[in-house]
C-alpha cells in the first residue's frame, strides 16, 4: 500500500466523521428551529421546587453573607447598596443578567445562578464564593433566593414561564482566524453594537442615556477589559462567555439578545472580534474600529495577558522600565520607538483613605510607558474614560488648594437605615451617576520623592502627596490644559507651585473613542532641593493618580495606584560579557584538572 493511498483514505474518513458530527449537532438544533426557537437554543422543562429544608438552610446562608448588600427583602437595598455602583441585584422581579436562557426568561438556577455565586461578578462588588461556601451551601442559598425573594415570577409557573436554553456545550467555537475577526469587526457596525459600545469598543458610544430596569444609570461594557465582564466566570479570555452574552442579552439592561437576527456563525465572528479587543501584552491598534488584514492577523495570534488567580485581574508588575533612546523623544503615540519598552498595567483603586472618599472609581487602570534620552524623560499614559470631561465654569478654588470641603466637594453620605425607606434611593451613588455630579476636568498625575537618593531604605514619602518630613514633586495634568509641578508635603497640605513646571511639557493630550492619550515630557534634572533628580539604574518610587471629571472627581476625590518603581535601564557594562567568559574558561581548566587526577589515580591503582 502506498503512502499517498493511506493518506487519502484518512482524508475520506475525516470527511465522513466531520459530516456525521455536524449532522449529530445539527439535528437537535434544527428540530428546535421548527418550534421557532432561535438558532442554537432548545426548550427545557421548568425545575422542580426545592424542599423546605433546603430553603431553610439557604436562609441561614443568606442572612450571614448576602443580606448586607441585597437587603432583608432581597430588593438590592442592604446597607452596602448606597455606596455601590453597579448596585446589588434586586431579586424581587426575577430579572437576572447572565443567563443561558432566551431574552426576558428566568435564568437556570443550577447553571446560571450557581455560576454567578461561584465565580462572582467581576467589575462589581459581588465576589466569588467558591472556597468560602460549599457547593451545597451555594445551592441552598439559591433555593432561598429563588423561592422567597424572587416575588414577581416563579420557576414553577407553568402558565407564564418557559425556558429556551442556549446549547453552549454542544456548539464548538469558531477558530479565531483573521477572516473571522475581520468579519466580526464589520458585523459590530452592521448590528449597531458600536452605537453603545463605541467605535473602538471602549463603551463610550452612549455613556449617559442608558438606564436599567430600575432607572439607574448603566454604562455599556468596555471590550478592552474582559476581566471586568460580569459574565466572564473567572475565565475572561474565553470566547464562549461573549458568545453567551451576545446570544441571550442581559435582562434588565439595554443589552438585547441578538439570537433572532444573527446566525450562530455570525455570533462566533462577533465574539471572536470582541474577544480580540481585550488588552494583550502589546497594543494592537485598530483606530476607529478599522481592522486591516495585518491587524486581524495580529489579533488572531496575540496571547492573553496573564491573569492573577487571587484577584482575577491582570498580574501587576511594580517595576516600570524606561529605555534610553538617541535623539529627540517621540512626539506622538505612533512613534516606533515606543515598541522598545514594555507597557505596564497600573491598577487603580478609589481613594478611600481621606475625605472626600471615592467609593466608585470609574478609572480602574491605566497603561504607562517611559523612554528617556540624555536630558529628558517622557511618559505616555493611556487610559479608558468613556467621557471627555472639561470643566466649563470657573471654580472658586486655586489649583494648589486641596481641602475642597468648604466648596461643597463632599463624599457620599452613608444614609444608614433611612436609605431603605427612600423607594427610589435618590441619594445613592447609583442614582447620582447620571446627572448628580458637577463636571470637573479629567486629569492624571504622578509623584516622585524629592531627594529620594537620601531616603533611609525602605522609607518613602507617604503615597498621598508626601508628608511633613519627606516631600514629593507632583506633576499634574488636567484636561483644561493646565500642567503644573507642585511640592506636596501631605494629604491635607495645600500644594506649592514649583518653577520647574516651566520646563515640563505636554507633548500630546488627546481624547478619542473613549480613551485618553497623554504624553508628558520632563527634564531628568532640576533644582536638587525641589524636584526629584532622575538617575539611571536606580529604583525611583512613583505613585499615580487619575481623575474622571464626569464622576465628580476633583481634589482628593480620585483614583490612586500603589507604589511603583521607575527604572531607567542603563547601558550594559563591559563586565557583563567579561566575567562570564572568564568563569567559563576557569571551569574548563578545573574539568581538565579533575579528569587528569582521576585518570592518574586509576593508573596508580592499576599498577598497584
Amino acid at each position, binding site marked *: 500500500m502506498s503512502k499517498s493511498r493511506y493518506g487519502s483514505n484518512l482524508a475520506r474518513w475525516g470527511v465522513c466523521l466531520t459530516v456525521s458530527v455536524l449532522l449529530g449537532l445539527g439535528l437537535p438544533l434544527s428540530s428546535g428551529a421548527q418550534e421557532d426557537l432561535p438558532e442554537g437554543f432548545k426548550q427545557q422543562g421548568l425545575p422542580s421546587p426545592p424542599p423546605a429544608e433546603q430553603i431553610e438552610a439557604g436562609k441561614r446562608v443568606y442572612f450571614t453573607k448576602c443580606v448586607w448588600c441585597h437587603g432583608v427583602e432581597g430588593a438590592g437595598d442592604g446597607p452596602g447598596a448606597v455606596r455601590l455602583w453597579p448596585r446589588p441585584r434586586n431579586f424581587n422581579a426575577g430579572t437576572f443578567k447572565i443567563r443561558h436562557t432566551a431574552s426576558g426568561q428566568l435564568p437556570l438556577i443550577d447553571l446560571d445562578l450557581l455560576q454567578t455565586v461561584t465565580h462572582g461578578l467581576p467589575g462589581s462588588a459581588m465576589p466569588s464564593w467558591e472556597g468560602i461556601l460549599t457547593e451545597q451551601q451555594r445551592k441552598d442559598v439559591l433555593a432561598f433566593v429563588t423561592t422567597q425573594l424572587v416575588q414577581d415570577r416563579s420557576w414553577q409557573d407553568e402558565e407564564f414561564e418557559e425556558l429556551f436554553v442556549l446549547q453552549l456545550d454542544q456548539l464548538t467555537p469558531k477558530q479565531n482566524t483573521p477572516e473571522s475577526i475581520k468579519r466580526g469587526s464589520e458585523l459590530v457596525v452592521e448590528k449597531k453594537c458600536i452605537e453603545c459600545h463605541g467605535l473602538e469598543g471602549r463603551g463610550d458610544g452612549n455613556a449617559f442615556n442608558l438606564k436599567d430596569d430600575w432607572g439607574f444609570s448603566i454604562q455599556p461594557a468596555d471590550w478592552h477589559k474582559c476581566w471586568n465582564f460580569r459574565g466572564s466566570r473567572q475565565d475572561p479570555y474565553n470566547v464562549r462567555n461573549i458568545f453567551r452574552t451576545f446570544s441571550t442579552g442581559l435582562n434588565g439592561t439595554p443589552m438585547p439578545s441578538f439570537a433572532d437576527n444573527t446566525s450562530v456563525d455570525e455570533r462566533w465572528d462577533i465574539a471572536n472580534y470582541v474577544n480580540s479587543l481585550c488588552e494583550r501584552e502589546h497594543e494592537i491598534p485598530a483606530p476607529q474600529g478599522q481592522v486591516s488584514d495585518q491587524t486581524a492577523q495580529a489579533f488572531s495570534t496575540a496571547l492573553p495577558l496573564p491573569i492573577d488567580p487571587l484577584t*482575577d485581574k491582570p498580574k501587576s508588575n511594580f517595576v516600570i522600565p524606561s529605555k534610553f533612546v538617541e535623539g529627540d523623544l517621540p512626539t506622538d503615540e505612533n512613534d516606533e520607538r515606543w515598541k522598545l519598552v514594555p507597557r505596564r498595567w497600573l491598577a487603580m*483603586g478609589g481613594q478611600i483613605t481621606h475625605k472626600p472618599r471615592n467609593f466608585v472609581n470609574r478609572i480602574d487602570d491605566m497603561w504607562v510607558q517611559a523612554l528617556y534620552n540624555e536630558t529628558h524623560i517622557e511618559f505616555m499614559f493611556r487610559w479608558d474614560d468613556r467621557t471627555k470631561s472639561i470643566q466649563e465654569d470657573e471654580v472658586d478654588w486655586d489649583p494648589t488648594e486641596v481641602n475642597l470641603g468648604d466648596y461643597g466637594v463632599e463624599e457620599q453620605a452613608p444614609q444608614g437605615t433611612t436609605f431603605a425607606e427612600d423607594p427610589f434611593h435618590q441619594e445613592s451613588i447609583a442614582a447620582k451617576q447620571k446627572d448628580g455630579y458637577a463636571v470637573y476636568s479629567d486629569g492624571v498625575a504622578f509623584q516622585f520623592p524629592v531627594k529620594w537618593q537620601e531616603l533611609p531604605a525602605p522609607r518613602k514619602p507617604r*503615597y498621598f502627596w508626601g508628608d511633613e518630613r519627606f516631600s514629593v514633586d507632583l506633576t499634574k495634568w488636567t484636561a483644561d490644559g493646565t500642567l503644573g509641578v507642585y511640592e506636596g508635603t501631605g494629604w491635607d497640605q495645600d500644594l506649592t507651585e514649583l518653577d520647574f513646571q516651566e520646563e515640563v511639557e505636554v507633548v500630546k493630550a488627546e481624547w478619542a473613542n473613549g480613551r485618553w492619550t497623554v504624553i508628558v515630557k520632563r527634564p531628568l534634572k532640576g533644582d536638587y532641593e525641589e524636584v526629584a533628580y532622575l538617575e539611571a539604574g536606580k529604583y525611583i518610587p512613583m505613585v499615580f493618580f487619575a481623575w474622571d471629571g464626569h464622576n465628580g472627581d476633583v481634589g482628593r476625590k480620585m483614583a490612586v495606584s500603589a507604589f511603583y518603581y521607575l527604572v531607567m535601564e542603563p547601558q550594559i557594562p563591559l563586565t557583563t560579557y567579561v566575567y*562570564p567568559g572568564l568563569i567559563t574558561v576557569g571551569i574548563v581548566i578545573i574539568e581538565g584538572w579533575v579528569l587528569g587526577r582521576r585518570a592518574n589515580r586509576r593508573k596508580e591503582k592499576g599498577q598497584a
Partner: protein
Amino acid sequence: MTWLKLVEGYMPMQMISELAGSILVFALINWTLNRAGMGIPKFWAGVGVWIYIQLYLKYRIYPPIPFSVRAIYGTVSACGIFMWVSGSEDAWQEFKRPVMNVMDGISGFHKGMRTVALIVIPLALGGFAYNSFLPSFEEPIELRTVHPAPPATTKVHGKTFVLQVVENPYRVNNEGKYDQAYTDARIVEQAMGRLMKDVNDPNYNPWDPNAEGYTKYVREGGEIFFQNCHFCHGDNLNGRGLWAYAFNPIPANFTDAGTIAQLQETFVFWRVSKGGIGLPGEGFPWASVMPPWEQHLTVDEIWKVVMFEYWHTGYYPRTWD
C-alpha cells in the same frame, strides 16, 4: 484553573505537610521497587527528588516565592538528600557510581556522556553567570511588619484609651455587663461557610427584628463594615475586596488565623482608629492606604465594626492573660 487549589500566601504548614507526604510516597515506592528487585539507582532517585522539590516550590505555591528563598530550600533539601545517599559506605558508593562511570568513560556511551558534560557544564555555568551579571530589574523585596507593637495608650476623638485596660463597650450580656463568654457563644460557627448558628433565634441572627444588645450591635457594626470596609477587605472579610488588586500592601484577611484571631480587641481598635498613617516605621505607614478611621467614624462605630469582624469570622479576640 479552579481544579487546582493553590497554596495561598506563605502557608508553611500546608506546604511542609504536602512535601513530607509526597516524600513518604516516594520512599514507599522506592522500597516496594527495591523489594521487587527493580530498584531505581540511588543517583537518579536523589536527583529526581531534588528536582521534584524545586518544581513544587516554583509551580505549586502562589503567589510565587522569590528565587532567593527557593535557593535556601534548595540547599536544605540537597543537604537532606546528601545525608540519605551517604548514610552508609555502600550507599555512598552506589550513589556516586554513575558519576564515576561517566568520568572514567567505561563504555562508548559513558564516553559520549562525558564529552557532552564537558561541553555543557562550562556553557551552562557561563550562561548562568552572564544572566546574573546582566542588569535586571526585578521587583524589590521589602519586608514589612504586619502586626507592629502597639502603643500603651491611644487618643481617639480627644479621649485617651489605655489599651491594656479598655474594654469594648458593646461586648455585653443581656444585663449590659462586659461578658466575653456570653458574646463568644453567639458568633458564627467555625465550620465551612462560617454561618450564624440559628437564623430563627434573635440571640444568633443580627437581622432578627427582635435582636437586642450584643446581636443588635453586631448588625450595626456590619452596616458600617459594608458601607466602608468591604471595598478592600471584601464581602467575606478575606481581604479580597473590589480594590484588593490595586493596593500594595494587600488588605488584611480577617478570616486568616494570623490576623484578628491572634490580636487583642484593643489592638484592632488602635489599628482601625489610626490606620496606615498611624503605623510605626516598620509597618510602612507611607505605603498603606488603610484610612485612619477616626477621620470617618465615631469611637462607638469603631468598637461596633471591630466586634462585627470577630462575629463574622467566628474568632475570639485574644485576652491579655
